[in-house]
């Protein structure tokens, strides 16, 4: 049988395509089934599904306004609104089973201890073994360290990853999603690897503020938000390139990278792959065009067929020219 040229592997997790959802942009999957063509344009095109952020306790979310469009970007501050891990496990997770996709659960917490608790709760109560991976969102404030973002402090990153990895074990992937709001991305990346992460994903949103000049105040209820969309793509590609180029574990693919940030076309996806990403996450562009996963998959298929390559062979290609 001919090997599927789109197939990639994140450690021992095989994905039928390198495309994934970006956390928080596709709900818990069952919302998407309202789309008429969801099977062809989403389920068939995806390699894995990443849920929106789950927290230990239900979260109400931030006050309005929660989103504002900027030039080719989207500034959001949703505030991790979700119904908490208990309802997630009971109601939301089991519904994803029917789509036969690897499910990756994105988790957020205020302290390293809470991260550990949350990860343990998920693993211990996932009776159906639905969860294929846990993605740690280190872009949230660390309340035990005065509210500094975990992800900006390599020491804190290592601690969190270690705590989660200890509870998750080896059968479920531990993915660390890095924040781009740092001077040197390789530092938190190395810290996550030292903590035992299996996979790195980057980038989360960039911090930003937009001001309504007519009202003379910030647009967002939460004042600042996270910037996503095409505007941030070069930043994401740069950070993937840096990690792949400078970190041995990334270069030899023992710690593969999921590239995220502003992907809207198959060419954007290839940029990330050539910079060193094994898989890519698409988020904001999905809001603009629900057919995006299908389109990107089609584009990649065509490109691979024309050049007689596989995705695997193209990972990090830009470093070898």
């Amino acid at each position: 049988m001919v090997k599927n040229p789109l197939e990639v592997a994140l450690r021992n997790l095989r994905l039928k395509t390198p495309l994934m959802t970006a956390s928080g942009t596709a709900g818990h999957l069952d919302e998407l089934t309202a789309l008429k063509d969801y099977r062809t344009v989403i389920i068939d095109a995806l390699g894995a599904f990443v849920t929106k952020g789950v927290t230990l306790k239900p979260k109400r979310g931030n006050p309005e306004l929660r989103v504002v469009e900027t030039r080719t970007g989207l500034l959001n501050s949703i505030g991790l609104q979700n119904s908490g891990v208990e309802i997630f496990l009971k109601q939301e997770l089991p519904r994803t089973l029917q789509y036969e996709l690897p499910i990756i659960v994105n988790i957020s917490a205020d302290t390293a201890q809470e991260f550990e608790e949350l990860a343990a709760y998920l693993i211990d109560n996932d009776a159906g073994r639905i969860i294929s991976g846990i993605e740690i969102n280190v872009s949230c404030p660390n309340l035990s360290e005065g509210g500094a973002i975990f992800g900006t402090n390599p020491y804190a990153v290592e601690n969190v990853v270690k705590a989660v990895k200890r509870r998750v074990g080896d059968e479920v992937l531990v993915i660390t999603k890095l924040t781009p709001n740092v001077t040197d991305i390789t530092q938190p990346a190395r810290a996550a690897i030292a903590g035992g992460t299996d996979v790195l994903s980057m980038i989360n949103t960039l911090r930003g503020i937009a001001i309504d000049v007519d009202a003379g105040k910030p647009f967002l209820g939460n004042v600042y938000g996270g910037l996503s969309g095409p505007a941030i793509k070069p930043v994401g590609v740069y950070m993937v390139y840096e990690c792949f180029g400078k970190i041995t574990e990334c270069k030899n693919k023992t710690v593969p990278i999921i590239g995220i940030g502003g992907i809207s076309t198959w060419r954007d996806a290839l940029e990330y792959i050539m910079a060193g990403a094994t898989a890519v996450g698409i988020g904001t562009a999905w809001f603009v065009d629900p057919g995006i996963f299908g389109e990107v998959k089609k584009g990649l298929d065509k490109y691979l067929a024309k050049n007689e390559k596989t995705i695997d062979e193209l990972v990090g290609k830009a470093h070898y020219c």
Partner: protein
Amino acid sequence: MSQKESSAQRERSFYAKTRSNVAKLVPDKLSPSVRTLNEDDIEKAISDEDANRKAYHSLCYSLLRIILLHDKWRIAYVDPSQFEDNVFGMALRDISSVKPDEVPENIAFIAQNDNNRNGNKMILFCFDDQGSDLLRKVSYEVKKLDDGKFDNICVMVVPSPEIMQDKRRVSKADEWRRGFFLCFPEIRKKSEHLNEKEYLQLCVCTSNPIADFEERSGILTETVEVLDNIAVGQESRSHYKLRFRTSHSFNITPGQFIMTATSSHRHEEAVSRPTSLDNLKSSFIIKPTSYLKRPFGIHRAFYPHFDLPYLKRLSLPPELATVLHTVFPNQFEIFYKVLENGVGTNELTKLKRGDKVQIIGPLGKRLHMRELREQGFEEIHVIGGGVGMAPLIFMVQALRYYSYPVKAFIGTEKIGMLKYKCSRDGLDNCDGLDNLDNTFSEEPRDATIYVDDLIDAGVDPADIYVSSTVLENHDWTIPKDNLYEGVVTGQYNVYLQSRQRERRQKKQRQKKILAFACGPTGMMKALTLITAEFGIKQKVLMEKRMACGIGVCLSCVCETKNGEGGESKYSRVCTDGPIFDAAEIVW
């Protein structure tokens, strides 16, 4: 004999009797095994043999009869043998004396109501494709007789919702000009609801609860074609009306919305890397361009072969109307305000005839119009402020299909903002458009948005109210008394007060009224106090900034009171709404 036993015996004999009734209706092969008339049986009944098909038709007829008699319509049928001679009057046979099991086959039925204000004195209906040829012929004859006043509607009864969905496709509209559709499960449910006793005599052996017919339609991504995009308002070019058409069936109901790209550029082009300085200039670097799609409610929808004069006269038997379906609309208008510094709305104004833009929809919860009648609402009020009136017009269009009495209250800053020149040149000159079948144009005229839309939808001018902070002199098609200087909430309050006074004088009972409001938050909030005072149930159409429109991004939230433990929570306008109970919102 104990009382318990005797009642059980009575029940047994009742069932035996009704089962034999049904056996008469569903003879031959089916009758011995008939215990329940489920979908499969019906399917079999129409596919198997003539006799069974006839039995199915008889059953359909009997159920329809319950509904039409409730609406006080007489039923007749067309005798095909007489009709051959083209003497229409001779071909009509009164069916009141005909028993259900003697219903002739391959005929078109006619229901008549002589006391109707607006016309539509006749309903012609036929079962499935049986009799449809005759139906068409009869429809043509009636049309000749009534001087093209369209005083008839055609209804085709089909066995299942699936077949009905298929018939309703826009591509099939030509086969059924001005055709309405009914499906069997729905008339079965409706007739049971209206006259349980008679229904039971017909088919008591239906032990299964009848499943609700749920209109299913997934969210589509579709490229639509712009028909025109014209400025509305006398002074500034601050409001626009965009009309587009879809190539496929687009099953959207009032309260639902679409998200539309604001330019015909494909999303890929908009974000692709500029390759030259020229590209750079025209690209987003210099001038902001929109990225996300924008949400809009539907202002008006047009249905193939239901032209405006026909719609205006349309008046359906109320109970039957709640189970009738049309061909899906394929042409839509959105009415939007151009924000001074709004990137998306400014881009939208640049769209012109023939441009193609991508839309997503239908989005939002469906409003089930038929349920409003089941909930006992006798009258519907719509109250709109500014562009908030637009989605309410579409709602009124639908309400009219369901024969609901409607009163509309329009609030506008200035009367002049409603005026525009409705021109025809758009569609006569079809540059850039290939096929204009099934598209509508209006007569060229000086038009008033909302007011004319409502009149076109068949609302009596006396039921249309307009308020404005500045009342200028204008020619009005509505009574002078329906104009009000001030805000729409003020006018509505005054209206309700005078209505209450009148009612008390005449010692009448208060009607059960439902009000829909859409407009600025302050206005909707103020209305909740007024409707509460007068005991009117109020629903609101909420509007928020959105990103995805399908419930995943959690951007478009509004605070509602239905959180856990009696606390408030953030609900999504896009999927939990946009229609909410006004009492549910934390204002």
